[in-house]
């Protein structure tokens, strides 16, 4: 063997060893840096880099202080689609999927276009383009929930109360008195009028150009709608909810899932129940959602109203609508009885359930166990070493691990199967109730054609209203029965029963001796 052979062999070995040492060093340094980064994570993560105040409706500056929450919020534009609800890039039309909805909503804007909803960050843009708004004159009250509207209410309210209105004054404090005054002042205005008002309110970012009446941009609900800009504490801002929850507190409906109301009643129900001072933080984690995810009246015959005077159950809400009359132009007269729309096929005045998630949740086992909306829809997650409530508000079914498995220590598949079972059962019941309702429409149409009088149809129309209200209550609620499965089944069973009673009523009319000519007053 020559020396040069030896040398090149040992050089080969050396190269191999050098490579190994280099790779190991690379690995060790990578781990070192990783450990360093993880240790950094464990330090205080929140730095307030910009000030936000009571006009900061634009979420962007908040996002500089709370990048994690802001990034989550932005994700609400492109949620996945689940079997029942959830969000979609081009949301599917419910009217095409469930043709009976077209008949249920005949004579109401929802029969024109009704799609799955997208997330919070898209809700205002989506509302601006839906054919319900572009083809039908809608009320400005819709913006109570779709826009970050509180500073606009405050501005108009301050003008009404004769207070000086400047950007600085608007930004100073919440000023609930002015917010309420502004809310009432715009309640009869049209969608376009209120939308224009939104853009006259500073949003904390846009600077007004000379002569331009637009001081800010209109934003969908954002940070300021649930958080106090000074303390970041959760708070309720919506006048509709503040009035509604006070009515509920003053009712005698048992609300075991809302302990602060029980406490307030026990203390003598003094003054106004104010969730921002009386409610627990856990309750507020549901109340902020209940500001909008509820049943309400939202048109311009009266102020936006949450019907909670009798309680939160479907018949409690119905009882309030039954006893409500619209304000009359003539102060001496009682106004026309409340209704949402005239059902076009049958001519009956009926109620439209919006999306009573808060009310149905209130009847369910999760509410009773102290589980809030945010616990499932905004579950806590660890980001680095920080625990934050996810602001990617979405279906818990797209996030079973964090949303359910914190409490339910069974497999994801088992949880999904349980939810599917509840939702399939509810969905099947909805189909049955829908079949009963549509048969009822046919029976009433036939009875009218056979010459039934309005008086004869009165009890049947009452049954129709009850049947439609109950079906709509569950069909338009966004959980397909999951929020309170037994309650949903009860409500749908009642709907089917009322529809069938109405159908039987129609048959009886037909079998009666040939419609006698109306004798005087047969009422």
């Amino acid at each position, binding site marked *: 063997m020559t020396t040069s052979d030896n040398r090149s062999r040992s050089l080969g070995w050396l190269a191999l060893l050098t490579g190994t040492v280099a790779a190991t*060093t690379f690995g060790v340094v990578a781990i070192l840096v990783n450990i360093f980064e993880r240790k950094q994570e464990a330090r205080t993560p929140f730095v307030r880099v910009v000030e936000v105040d009571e006009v900061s409706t634009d979420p962007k500056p908040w996002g500089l202080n709370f990048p994690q929450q802001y990034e989550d919020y932005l994700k609400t534009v492109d949620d996945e689609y689940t079997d029942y609800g959830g969000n979609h890039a081009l949301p599917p039309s419910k009217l095409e999927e469930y043709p009976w909805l077209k008949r249920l909503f005949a004579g109401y804007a929802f029969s024109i276009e009704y799609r799955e909803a997208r997330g919070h960050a898209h809700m205002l843009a989506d509302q601006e383009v839906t054919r319900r708004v572009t083809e039908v004159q809608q009320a400005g009250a819709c913006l109570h929930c779709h826009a970050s509207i509180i500073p606009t209410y405050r501005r108009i309210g301050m003008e009404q109360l004769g207070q000086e209105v400047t950007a600085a004054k608007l930004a100073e404090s919440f000023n609930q008195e002015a917010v309420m005054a502004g809310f009432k002042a715009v309640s009869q205005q049209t969608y376009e009028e209120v939308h224009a008002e939104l853009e006259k309110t500073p949003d904390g970012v846009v600077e007004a150009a000379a002569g331009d009446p637009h001081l800010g941009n209109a934003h969908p609900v954002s940070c300021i709608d649930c958080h106090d800009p000074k303390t970041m504490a959760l708070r309720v801002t919506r006048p509709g909810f503040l009035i509604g929850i006070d009515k509920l507190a003053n009712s005698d409906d048992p609300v075991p899932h809302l302990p602060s109301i029980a406490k307030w009643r026990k203390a003598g129900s003094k003054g106004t129940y104010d969730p921002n001072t009386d409610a627990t933080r856990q309750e507020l984690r549901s109340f902020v959602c209940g500001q909008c995810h509820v049943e309400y009246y939202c048109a311009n015959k009266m102020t936006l109203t949450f019907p909670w005077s009798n309680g939160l159950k479907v018949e409690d809400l119905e009882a309030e609508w039954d006893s409500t009359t619209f304000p009359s132009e003539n102060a001496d007269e009682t106004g026309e009885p409340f209704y949402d729309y005239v059902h076009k096929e049958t001519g009956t005045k009926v109620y439209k359930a919006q999306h009573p998630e808060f009310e149905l949740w209130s009847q369910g086992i999760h509410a009773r166990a102290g589980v809030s909306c945010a616990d499932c829809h905004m579950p806590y997650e660890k980001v680095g070493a920080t625990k934050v409530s996810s602001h990617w508000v979405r279906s818990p079914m797209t996030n079973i691990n964090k949303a359910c*498995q914190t409490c339910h220590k069974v497999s994801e598949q088992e949880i999904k199967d349980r939810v599917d079972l509840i939702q399939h059962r509810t969905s099947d019941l909805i189909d049955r109730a829908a079949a009963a309702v549509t048969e009822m429409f046919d029976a009433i149409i036939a009875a009218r054609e056979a010459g039934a009088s309005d008086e004869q149809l009165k009890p049947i129309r009452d049954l129709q209203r009850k049947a439609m209200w109950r079906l709509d209550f569950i069909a338009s609620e966004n959980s397909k029965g999951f929020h309170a499965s037994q309650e949903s089944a009860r409500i749908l069973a009642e709907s089917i029963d009322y529809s069938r009673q109405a159908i039987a009523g129609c048959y009886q009319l037909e079998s009666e001796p040939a419609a006698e000519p109306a004798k005087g007053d047969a009422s």
Partner: protein
Amino acid sequence: MRFGKVAMTFFVCLGLLAGVGTFTFGYGKGASYLSNNPETCINCHVMQDHMDSWQQSSHHHVAVCNDCHLPHDFVGKWVTKADNGFFHSLAFTMGGYKDPIQIKPRNQRVTQSTCISCHKDFVHPLLPAIAGHDMLSCVHCHADVGHAGR
């Protein structure tokens, strides 16, 4: 004995590796992993909640993490420590683990065996007649003994 320049450079690098390696071991609190100290488990802050809830629990006077989560025999203890040590570090370094953290079946069996190890005189009538036969998990009902208020 004389070394060439290349070899010298190599040994310098080797020394650097030894230095960085030792520093990393110290900075990462490597030695603590050989101990029984519960503080070790929160070197990775993901376990902070578990530490906090253990301090609320009925067992924190009598048992530390290792007493429930490692077998009580020598070989089993160190094999499990190595196994969990490796996979925990891997999970924490790479991310993407389940949150809330879920116990693996192997570690569930370990916990069951440690419950019985201490309480066997008390629970022997409940134990399966055939070794290894199916039985209820102790923590299925006594969920709070190690981590109260979770």
